[in-house]
């Protein structure tokens, strides 16, 4: 069972206004060995991700945002479509419009099979659209998205450090050496089960000598 033990657990944020569906999705995800957080609304999801709505009554919280997101480390968001207030689609848009969150894969679920809704969500950036009730077989489809984004996120974080915040440069060199050690291990595993996507290779060409081993 502990094949991927060295890699930290993937953290999934599940958003659904129905208590029963939250319980179900939580169980489904935990059975698949993911770490799960459930919330009952889009706004709470954004709060958890560290992104406040701009017109909220709590301006003092916005300054805390980026820190929270990085500490929390959500790898995937799975959300119900039909929710009061902010729908799953609205949540999807907000995530994709955020520079810090847009790389997080978003999955939309719905009990209603409406083709126009499905294509709208996929066009809006959703990775997949699940029809409810969600099954274990659906949850197994999440893994490739998580695998792909996990390594992308690490690369993107380093790129952001170089391009934007200069004060973080000190930290990033430490992160680099850590990632170097980690990615050596990861490369061996990835060679077996990865379907190579161009997104992964592009950022790596920015200067990782380790990449040649992997490819």
């Amino acid at each position, binding site marked *: 069972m502990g094949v991927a033990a060295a890699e930290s657990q993937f953290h999934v944020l599940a958003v659904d206004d129905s208590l029963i*569906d939250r*319980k179900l999705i939580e169980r489904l995800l935990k059975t698949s060995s993911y770490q799960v957080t459930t919330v009952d609304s889009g706004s709470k999801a954004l709060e958890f991700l560290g992104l406040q709505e701009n017109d909220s009554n709590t301006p003092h919280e916005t300054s805390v945002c980026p820190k929270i997101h990085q500490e929390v480390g959500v790898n995937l968001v799975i959300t119900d479509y039909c929710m009061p207030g902010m729908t799953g689609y609205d949540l999807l848009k907000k995530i994709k419009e955020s520079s810090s969150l847009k790389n997080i894969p978003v999955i939309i679920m719905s*009990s209603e099979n409406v083709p126009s809704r499905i294509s709208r969500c996929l066009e809006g950036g959703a990775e997949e659209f699940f029809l409810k*009730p969600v099954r274990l077989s659906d949850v197994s489809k999440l893994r490739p998205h998580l695998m792909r984004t996990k390594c992308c996120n690490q690369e993107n974080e380093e790129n952001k450090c170089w391009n934007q915040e200069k004060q973080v440069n000190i930290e990033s060199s430490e992160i680099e050496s850590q990632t170097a050690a980690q990615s050596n291990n990861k490369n061996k595993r990835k060679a077996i089960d990865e379907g190579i996507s161009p997104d992964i290779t592009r950022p790596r060409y920015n200067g990782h000598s380790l990449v040649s081993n992997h490819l």
Partner: protein
Amino acid sequence: MERNSHRQLANMKKSLFDQGYLDQEQFTQLEELQDEANPNFVEEVVTLYYRDSARLIQNIEQALAEKNPLDFTKLDNYMHQFKGSSCSIGAKKLKNECTQFREYCRTGNGEG
């Protein structure tokens, strides 16, 4: 003793499946999610479902009582929730009834 109750349970489930009250596939999914680490999962979910449904039914009854005029949007919303949770738990017959109810809402059929 235990074997008897297991058999009883199996029989009960089978009749629920056969009569179309319970969706075998979905309910089996729920059972598969139960294991040693989570021995009461099915019970917890079903209990939640009953509680949730009771609340929904109360809301629906209230909405139906406000007869003039019937708030179909509100009723439709309740039905959507009810249908959703029924679906997740495999309550097939109930889900079908909900769908029918929503059709009535859509067509403004108060009598239905």
